[in-house]
C-alpha cells in the first residue's frame, strides 16, 4: 500500500478563480442532490474504476477504429459524404483477404455490444462525481466536466444508435450514418483528452491493489479501498458482493451479450447460440437460405424486369454491349467462396459462381478501368447504384455472380445477376444488376 495516504479528495486549495463564486454555489446544494454519505457501496473506489477504465481504454479504440475503417471500405461512396479532414487516411480497401471487412465490422458491432455492460459499470463506478457539490471549483474543472459531458453523452449516443440500427428500429428518425459518424468524432476528441488527464491516476490506482490478491479475496474479506478518494464511500455499507464478484458480473455480462449476438458473423454452431441476434438465424436448409439484406419485394423488382427480356448492359469503351443470361452463362465461369458482410455486423460465407468482372471489362473494351458504376434494376433505394474501384473490378474473385452454392440465385439474392467483390461492404454488392459502366483510365 505504497499509495496509502495519497488523497484524491478535493481541498480548499483546489478552488480557482473565481473562488467566491464556486464557494457560494457550494453552499447552496439544491434539494435532490444526494450528499456524500448517500454513496454507500464498499466496492466503489479508484482501483475498480481504473480496472474498468483500462478495459475500455483497450476496447473502445478498437470499436472506433473499425468504425472509421468501415467508412474507408465504402470506397468512393462513403457516408456521410463530406467529412472535412475527419477520416482515416484514404486508401484502397484491399480485396484480399476477403474476410477483412467481415472481421473489421464484426469486431465493431460485436465488441461494441459486449462493451455495453463495461460502460455501464464504469459509469456506475464514478457516478458520485456527477452529483458532487459544488459541481466545479475552478475553470479547469468546468472545462473538464464539459468535456466529460461530451464523453459520456457521445458513448451513450453511439451505443444507443448502434443498438437500434442493427435491429432495424429507426425510431431516432435521423440519418444513422451521419449521426453515428459524427458521434464517433465527438467521442474521439473527448476520449483523447480524458485519457491523458486520467492516465496517471489510473496507473497509480492500478498499482494500489493487486489484481491477483483481489481475485483471491472472498466476500467476507471485502472492505472498501484504503485510499482516500472521492469515489470511496464515506459511510460504506457492508459488502454484499466481493470485488472479484463484481468483476465477474461485468465480464459475465459482456460474455453473455457476446454469446447472444456474435453468431451472426462467426457462423457455424454459434448461430444456434446467438438466439437474440436478428441476423443470426438460418432461414432454412436450401442453397439460397442465407440472410438477405433487401428483399426483391421491397426493392419492387417485377417479374417482367427479371424475365427473358433481361439484359446486362456494359458501357465504357465507346460501344454498348448487351448480354442476356444465356450468353453470360456461356462465358468462362469462375467460382469463389466469399463472405458477404454487412455494416450491421453480420455476415454469411457462400460459394458464388459467375463471370469475372474483369472479363466483362475486357468485353466492354476497358481492360484496365479506373472505376466502374454498377446499377441495379431497383428504381428507388439508396443503394441501387454502387461504385467500384479499379482493383475491385480487376480482382480475380470479383464476380458478376449468376449462381450461388451451385444453384440459380434466388430473386431475393439478386437473380438474374449480382455483384460479389471480396471484402466489399455488403450493400455495395449490387443485386439485380442491369448495367455496368466501366470508366476508362
Amino acid at each position: 500500500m505504497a499509495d496509502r495516504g495519497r488523497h484524491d479528495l478535493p481541498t480548499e486549495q483546489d478552488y480557482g478563480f473565481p473562488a467566491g463564486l464556486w464557494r457560494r454555489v457550494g453552499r447552496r446544494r439544491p434539494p435532490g442532490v444526494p450528499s456524500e454519505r448517500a454513496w454507500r457501496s464498499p466496492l466503489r473506489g479508484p482501483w475498480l474504476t481504473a480496472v474498468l477504465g483500462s478495459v475500455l481504454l483497450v476496447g473502445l479504440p478498437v470499436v472506433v477504429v473499425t468504425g472509421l475503417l468501415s467508412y474507408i471500405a465504402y470506397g468512393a461512396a462513403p457516408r456521410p459524404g463530406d467529412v472535412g479532414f475527419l477520416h482515416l487516411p484514404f486508401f484502397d480497401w484491399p480485396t484480399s483477404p476477403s474476410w477483412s471487412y467481415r472481421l473489421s465490422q464484426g469486431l465493431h458491432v460485436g465488441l461494441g455490444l459486449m462493451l455495453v455492460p463495461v460502460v455501464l459499470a464504469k459509469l456506475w463506478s464514478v457516478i458520485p462525481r456527477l452529483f458532487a457539490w459544488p459541481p466545479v471549483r475552478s475553470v479547469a474543472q468546468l472545462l473538464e466536466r464539459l468535456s466529460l459531458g461530451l464523453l459520456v453523452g457521445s458513448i451513450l449516443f453511439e451505443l444507443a444508435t448502434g443498438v437500434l440500427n442493427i435491429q432495424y428500429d429507426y425510431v431516432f428518425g435521423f440519418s444513422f450514418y451521419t449521426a453515428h459518424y459524427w458521434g464517433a468524432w465527438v467521442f474521439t476528441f473527448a476520449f483523447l483528452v480524458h485519457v491523458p488527464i486520467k492516465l496517471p491516476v489510473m496507473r497509480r490506482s492500478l498499482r494500489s491493489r493487486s489484481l491477483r490478491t483481489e481475485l483471491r479475496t472472498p466476500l467476507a474479506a471485502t472492505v472498501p479501498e484504503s485510499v482516500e478518494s472521492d469515489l470511496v464511500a464515506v459511510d460504506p455499507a457492508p459488502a454484499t458482493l466481493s470485488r472479484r464478484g463484481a468483476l465477474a458480473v461485468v465480464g459475465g455480462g459482456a460474455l453473455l451479450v457476446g454469446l447472444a449476438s456474435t453468431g451472426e458473423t462467426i457462423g457455424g454452431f454459434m448461430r444456434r447460440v446467438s438466439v437474440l441476434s436478428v441476423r443470426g438465424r438460418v432461414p432454412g436448409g436450401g442453397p439460397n437460405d442465407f440472410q438477405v439484406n433487401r428483399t426483391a419485394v421491397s426493392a419492387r423488382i417485377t417479374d417482367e424486369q427479371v424475365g427473358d427480356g433481361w439484359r446486362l448492359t456494359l458501357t465504357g469503351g465507346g460501344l454498348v454491349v448487351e448480354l442476356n443470361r444465356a450468353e453470360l452463362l456461356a462465358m468462362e465461369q469462375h467460382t469463389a467462396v466469399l463472405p458477404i458482410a454487412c455494416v450491421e455486423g453480420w455476415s454469411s460465407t457462400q460459394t458464388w459462381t459467375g463471370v469475372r468482372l474483369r472479363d466483362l471489362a475486357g468485353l466492354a473494351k476497358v481492360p484496365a478501368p479506373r472505376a466502374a458504376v454498377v446499377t441495379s434494376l431497383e428504381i428507388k433505394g439508396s443503394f441501387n447504384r454502387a461504385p467500384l474501384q479499379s482493383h475491385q473490378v480487376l480482382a480475380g474473385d470479383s464476380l458478376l455472380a449468376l449462381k450461388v452454392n451451385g444453384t440459380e440465385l434466388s430473386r431475393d439474392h439478386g437473380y438474374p445477376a449480382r455483384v460479389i467483390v471480396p471484402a466489399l461492404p455488403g450493400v455495395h454488392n449490387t443485386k439485380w444488376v442491369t448495367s455496368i459502366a466501366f470508366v476508362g483510365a
Partner: protein
Amino acid sequence: MTGRRDASRLSRPGDILAVLGGVVLVWLLVRPRPLPATGLAETVSAPAPEPTTSPRRPVGGFRGFYGAHPLHLLVLLASLALTAYVVGFVVRAPDSVRIGIWFVAAVVAHDLVLFPLYALADRSVSGLLSRRPRRRVALVPAINHLRLPVMASLLLLLVFFPAILGQGEATYLRASGLTEGSTYLARWLLLTGAFFLLSAVAYAVRVATSGSTPAAVHSA
C-alpha cells in the same frame, strides 16, 4: 478516389491546427513517464505529492487561478475546438436538432433515469432481504441470487429490446424477408426463466448444505 484524395489534403489553416493539436495529444498519450505531480491530473482529483511528509505546496500563479497545469487548458481547448468543428458538420445535417436532442436525452436517460431506478431498486430489495434474519435461510444471503438473474435478464433486454419488443418488425421484414413475431420475446422470456431457475437451484443447494457449515456461505 482521386477527387476524394484532393479533398483529404491539408489545405485549410484549421486543418493544420487540428493536426498539430492531434500531435500534442498523441505525444501526451505516448509519453513514457507519468505526468509530474504538478501535471495535468492534479485538478478534479488533485493528489498531493506526498502529504505525509510535506504539506500541500502553496498554489499560486496560473495554477491557482485556473485550477490546473497550463497543458490541461491547452489540451481541453484543442479538444473542444475540434468538437466545435464536428458540430459544424452536424448542424448542416437535415435532422441536426433531433440528433442534438438524442445526444442530451442519452445522458439524461442514463444518469437521471436508469441509474436512479436501478440503484433504488437494488437498495430497496437489499434492505428487505436483510431485514429479518430467520434461522437457517438467513445464513445464505439471497441478494445475489436475485441480483444476478435480474441483471442478466435486464442486460439482454437493454441490448436487444428492439428485437424482443418487435420494434423494427416492418423494416426487418422488408430487409430480410423474415418475420420477428414474438420469436425474440419468447426467447428472452425463456432465457430469463432459465436464469432464475439456475439461480434458484444454486440457492437451494447452498441453503441445504449451509446448515452444518455456516461459515462457508460467506466465501462467495
